[in-house]
């Protein structure tokens, strides 16, 4: 990354991305620390290492734009605007959670910020995202929709069907594939006999970004989102990235096929190096930002802890 990148990003967005990524990272690290204590009785799929994808993308989205998520929800939901408190309270199973304690980690909801829900059955939410785009078209609205999914979700037939539907009906939807190269412990080469972008290119224009580099995502997502808005037709964006943690839970990944270099693979370290080099931020400011975010997380945890559990008599919602 050189300072030439400066031309392509506005400094406010760089800061916004850094903040977004740090919120997701620090939040995830805190979850990982707390998880063994069982205060969160829900399966967590952490996004550590993958934060740049949603952070870069969401710089280009408005609250009106809809985003449909799968099971790995935290970073993209926070990037889209879900308040920390609401996410934390949901993980804690409290009524103040974004889904009122009914959803858990895989089911986040915040329509004010364009999050109509998420799903833990891999693949299907791609189609739901296309439906949001259909709404936009039929109601003559401006918003666009994002179907946000992992590499292995492209195995599912609904991926093919959804691309076909969106392309046939010319719907304003961005297919965002966050390709971390893994489906649980299975490498992408064992679950996909195809190039994801190659298949997608049979249906719509395709962009690709380096998902460990926030600036690359920012740039390509910018183009992709602009194209969806302008053409009101589907566009595909694949961001390759790396998953640092195990598929689920609080432990570091230990797959031999998934080596992580905490310096070059870290989207936050990379963006910080760039921003420091470009004089957009100082190490001291970063420290202050980190602290500020820690305080927000403290607040979210405190909020969650003092929020009530749901009453058992409301089991039938």
């Amino acid at each position, binding site marked *: 990354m050189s300072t030439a990148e400066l031309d392509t990003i506005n400094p406010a967005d760089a800061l916004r991305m850094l903040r977004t990524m740090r919120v997701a990272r620090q939040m995830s690290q805190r979850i990982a620390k707390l998880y063994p204590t069982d205060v969160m009785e829900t399966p967590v799929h952490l996004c550590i290492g993958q934060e740049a994808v949603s952070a870069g993308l969401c710089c280009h989205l408005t609250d009106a734009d809809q985003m449909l998520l799968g099971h790995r929800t935290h970073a993209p939901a926070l990037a889209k605007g879900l308040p920390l408190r609401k996410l934390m309270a949901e993980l804690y199973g409290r009524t103040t959670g974004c889904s*009122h304690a009914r959803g858990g980690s895989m*089911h986040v909801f915040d329509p004010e910020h364009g999050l109509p*829900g998420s799903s833990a059955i891999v693949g299907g939410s791609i189609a739901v995202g296309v439906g949001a785009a259909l709404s936009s078209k039929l109601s003559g609205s401006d918003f666009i929709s994002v179907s946000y999914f992992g590499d292995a979700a492209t195995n599912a037939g609904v991926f093919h069907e959804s691309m076909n539907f969106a392309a046939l009906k010319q719907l304003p939807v961005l297919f965002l594939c966050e390709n971390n190269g893994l489906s649980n412990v299975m490498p992408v080469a064992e679950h996909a006999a195809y190039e994801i972008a190659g298949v997608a290119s049979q249906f719509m224009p395709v962009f690709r970004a380096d998902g460990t580099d926030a600036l690359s995502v920012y740039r390509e997502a910018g183009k992709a989102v602009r194209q969806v808005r302008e053409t009101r037709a589907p566009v595909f964006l694949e961001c390759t990235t790396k998953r640092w943690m195990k598929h689920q839970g609080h432990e570091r990944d230990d797959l031999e096929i998934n080596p992580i270099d905490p310096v070059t693979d870290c989207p936050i370290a990379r963006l910080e190096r760039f921003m420091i080099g470009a004089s957009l931020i100082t190490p001291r400011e970063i420290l202050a930002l980190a602290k500020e975010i820690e305080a927000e997380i403290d607040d979210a945890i405190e909020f969650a802890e003092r929020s009530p559990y749901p009453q058992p008599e409301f089991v039938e919602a």
Partner: protein
Amino acid sequence: MPWSRFDSNYRAPAGERDLAFVDAIREATDQAMCLDPRVFAMGLDADDKFGVFGSMRDMTHPERILGTPISENANTGVALGAALTGMRPILINLRNDFLLVAMDQIVNYVAKWQSMFDGQCAVPLVMRSVIGRGWGCGAQHSQSLQGLFAQIPGLKVVMPATPYDAKGLLLSAIKDDSPVMMFEHRWLYKNTGPVPEEMYTIPLGQGQRLHEGSSLTVVATSLAAIHTLTACEQRGLDVDLIDPRTIKPLDMDLILDSVSKTGRLLVVDYDFPFGGVAAEITSRVCEQAFDRLREPPQRIGFPEANMPASGPLERAYYPTPDTIGERIERWIGVEVCA
């Protein structure tokens, strides 16, 4: 398939204006689409010249009728996404057998979305589907799958038997803010009956008495209700015939009220015999009105087998007004009702 050759012997009492079942569905859909620009329809062949067996032809707003590819699963997800973001889709499947292709979306997504988010969102999604039967269509095109979907919390299930109910229930379904599935038996499509021109709704969960009697309560759904009615009328059976109209929620008050009177229960539901709607109704009556029952309850449904293709096997497979009538006569004898 010369469906036209299956004509029904059901004629509803004359009313202001008679309409065929299929036209009642068409009229409800058209009126709802005219009334509310958020209402739209989609499905395989929904926009073609056959218009879903006529139920979608000559609509006022063709621009809100979308044909789809053969991708029932994605189609359902798309409809859900549209429902979540302000639209009111009517998703149509030409055969309810195709719903199985979309089962993940229907059961894991549509049925659960509201409860996963504690009802913070509306899911105003109507899923119409048509039950086929006969003409050697075979096992994959002749199922009646209401029993499967009735099991799933989060889905309402309606099954109109008359043109009046078809219009009123469909409008209720469209008006509802939660997912509603409507199963329409293809053999009812040409039946006619009185249907008011204005829009009206029938509360979901309200059954009706189609025939009055005191010796036996028969609870029957959809075409089975019409077949039982035919049997009652042709044979003068002393039967209290309850058509629940809505499978879920179920009008247990009406059923229990009738059983209290007759002391006997027969459920006729055209579906596989294991579990399902007939088993649920039978169980609830036994649980809730055990002391009123004077004899063991009975059920009529399909045999424990998939649908065969050949005519003689098909005719043996499906209950008919005659087999229903004979079964009832064997049970309660022939008495002319009051």
